[in-house]
């Protein structure tokens, strides 16, 4: 029906553009997190992740060894190459340099950056101050008429040279000092760092931050909590779908009603109960809670599916003398595989992603933290500003659900449809 009356091609362009826009809004936040998780901490704080593909200008502090200093006339001179013996200084091209951490890129490569002691007239009195000045390496400094504060710079007494630094693009430098150079001077350069992606954040989070433990805990919570309810719910669903007994309608209504009972209501009474019967806050408690909380949806989904199975097959089996137990295990259960798969995916995603039940029913020590609790209670607090670590942690926690999601989307969609629309 693409080219029928009433469908204009202009509309289709608008449609395409709006869908692209929506998809971008939906995708960009996750993409940002993914990109950030592979970036170095220094790069994250320098530029946004959307510029991760471009070089970052970063400042470095270098202290070249003072060993090679020689005396030339009154001055002491140290020269060499800044990139020697220094690793990780970006592309090896200096984009700016300086002699203070305040202004690490004050001068351009090829210039000389010098500090003079100058005399100024401040409030009618002569005073001295430091002045940093950049000038071509083969030229002479030209002093301005006034300093930053607007005080007049005197030409008499003339400015006295303290030290200067000349750096070339390739890192060759010449450091001149009025005093003897007996210890390594500090020089600053800015260099363009090429985009760099590392697995450091993941390594940190998995080795030193106990996230591996949390990952195992999450898995430990999710798998039994997914498997155990299935059989219990399947038998019940079969009874509600294919067996005749009084009270069936009422029970189905109850299940539908229980679907919407807010979990919050169950927390306090059940925790009290668990404490009384000795389960306390433990993995067993979480498994029981998840099993029960997933039960209404499981029964509802499976019953809806089983009701739709062909009546003939089941009646034939009954005529042939099969008991309900045999019909269930040999016919209904295998045929219901798609619904079982749908429910398992739901339950797995739900238990994996759950924060509330884990917070309440698991012990609150860090040994039993699942990933959601770890992120929400620990990392967001203690590492609140460490975006690379946070991003990596988030991705460790959403990797498995995303994998399940993309590999079994078909079942998920089918389950959603069975659960919501008849």
């Amino acid at each position, binding site marked *: 029906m693409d080219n029928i*009356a009433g469908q204009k091609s202009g509309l289709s362009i608008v449609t395409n553009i709006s869908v692209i826009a929506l*998809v971008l809004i939906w995708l*960009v936040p996750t993409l940002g997190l993914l990109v950030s998780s592979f970036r170095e901490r220094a790069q994250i704080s320098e530029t946004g992740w959307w510029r991760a593909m471009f070089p970052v200008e970063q400042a470095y502090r270098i202290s070249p060894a003072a060993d090679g200093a020689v005396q030339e006339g009154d001055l002491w001179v140290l020269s060499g190459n800044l990139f020697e013996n220094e690793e990780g200084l970006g592309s090896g091209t200096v984009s700016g340099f300086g002699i203070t951490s305040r202004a690490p890129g004050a001068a351009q490569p090829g210039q000389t950056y010098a500090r003079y002691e100058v005399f100024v007239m401040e409030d009618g009195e002569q005073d001295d101050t430091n002045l940093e000045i950049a000038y071509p390496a083969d030229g002479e400094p030209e002093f301005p008429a006034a300093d930053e504060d607007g005080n007049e710079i005197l030409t008499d007494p003339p400015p006295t040279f303290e030290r200067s630094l000349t750096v070339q693009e390739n890192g060759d430098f010449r450091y001149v000092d009025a005093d003897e150079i007996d210890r390594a001077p500090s020089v600053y350069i800015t260099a363009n760092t090429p985009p760099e992606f590392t697995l450091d954040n993941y390594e940190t989070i998995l080795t030193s931050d106990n996230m591996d433990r949390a990952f195992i805990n999450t898995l430990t919570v999710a798998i039994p909590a997914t498997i155990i309810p299935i*059989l219990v719910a399947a038998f019940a669903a079969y009874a509600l779908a294919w067996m005749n007994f009084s009270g069936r309608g009422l029970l*189905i209504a109850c299940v539908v009603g229980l679907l919407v009972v807010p979990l919050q*209501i169950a927390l306090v009474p059940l925790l009290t109960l668990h404490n009384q019967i000795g389960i306390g806050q433990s993995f067993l408690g979480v498994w029981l809670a998840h099993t029960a909380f997933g039960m209404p949806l499981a029964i509802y989904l499976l019953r809806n599916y089983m009701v739709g199975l062909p009546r003939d097959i089941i009646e034939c089996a009954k005529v042939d003398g099969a008991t309900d*137990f045999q019909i269930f295990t040999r016919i209904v259960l295998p045929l219901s595989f798609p619904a079982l798969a749908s429910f398992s995916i739901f339950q797995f995603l739900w238990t994996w992603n759950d924060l509330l039940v884990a917070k309440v029913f698991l012990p609150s020590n860090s040994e039993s933290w699942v990933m959601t609790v770890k992120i929400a209670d620990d990392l967001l607090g203690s590492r609140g500003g460490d975006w690379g670590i946070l991003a990596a942690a988030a991705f460790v926690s959403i990797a498995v659900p995303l994998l399940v999601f993309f590999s079994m989307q078909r079942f998920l969609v089918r389950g959603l449809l069975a659960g919501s629309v008849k």
Partner: protein
Amino acid sequence: MSPALQGIITIIIGVGGCAAYFYASNYVLDKFVFPARTDDHGRNISRATMIRPWLFLAPAIFFLSLYLVYPVVGSFVRSLYNRSGDTFIGLGNYTQMFSEEGFRIAFFNNILWVIFVPAAATFLGLLVAQLTDRLKWGNLAKSLIFMPMAISFVGASLIWKFVYANNPEIGIINAVRDYFGMNPIDVLQIPFWNNFFIMFILVWIQTGFAMVILSAALRGIPEETVEAAIIDGANPFQIFFKIKVPQIMGTIVVVWTTITILVLKVFDIVYAMTGGNFDTEILPSYMMDYMFRDDGRATAVAFVIMVVVTPVMVWNIVQARKEMN
């Protein structure tokens, strides 16, 4: 014993135990209680048929009643007692709660959530479902918009913390503001509107859900009705609003109510984004503030949530009964 090993044993005991229970109880019923091979076999078979459903249902009923029905009563009873649970104070927890500013803010915000989130998610879901319907890459688009469904609320909150970050080198919103020369702002601290920034996270998650279901409903619309409208000269907007939407109204309502119920349960997003600060508290997160500290108050909040959900519950049951008849 390590929890993982404990987990494996629990799976074996849990699944094996269930299987053994179902098998053994059936066996006992058929062989010993009401054996079919006696003089009385006719009556025995019918009696066994009467009992068997309850054998099948017993474990499920046990879980449902202990973990979902009992707590409704248990929570209500507990909410009538004081903090330590030894003194009956009637509705004291409720009256004290209603008089508090914090509860009123949470309640008001919750109303905002219940109105905005289902409406926005359903609207966007319907929009995407309709727009992608004829698109060649529609399935890919749907898949990407559906993806947040798999992400935990905590993970989603973290993803959006990046977007909302105050630092223009991290948060994309402030990067855009920065580009236009505006000062960075912390959107989570703007009074009132910060709620909407938090709500949007849930909209972002739930739109995929609405889209999947509404998309299936749109596909289920009989082609003839659309064709007839086209022949009558209806434009695409008329077709959508006057032909398609009325036919899937039932599904829209189902999606709407499902998301509404979810909204009343989600505490994770507020908890991770602001911790309830800056007047963003909602009832579920307000309850968690009292959990472990004042069980009386916590159960009172839980019961308020339960009361708010009840109309939806009744409506759901009525609908389900209609369908079965």
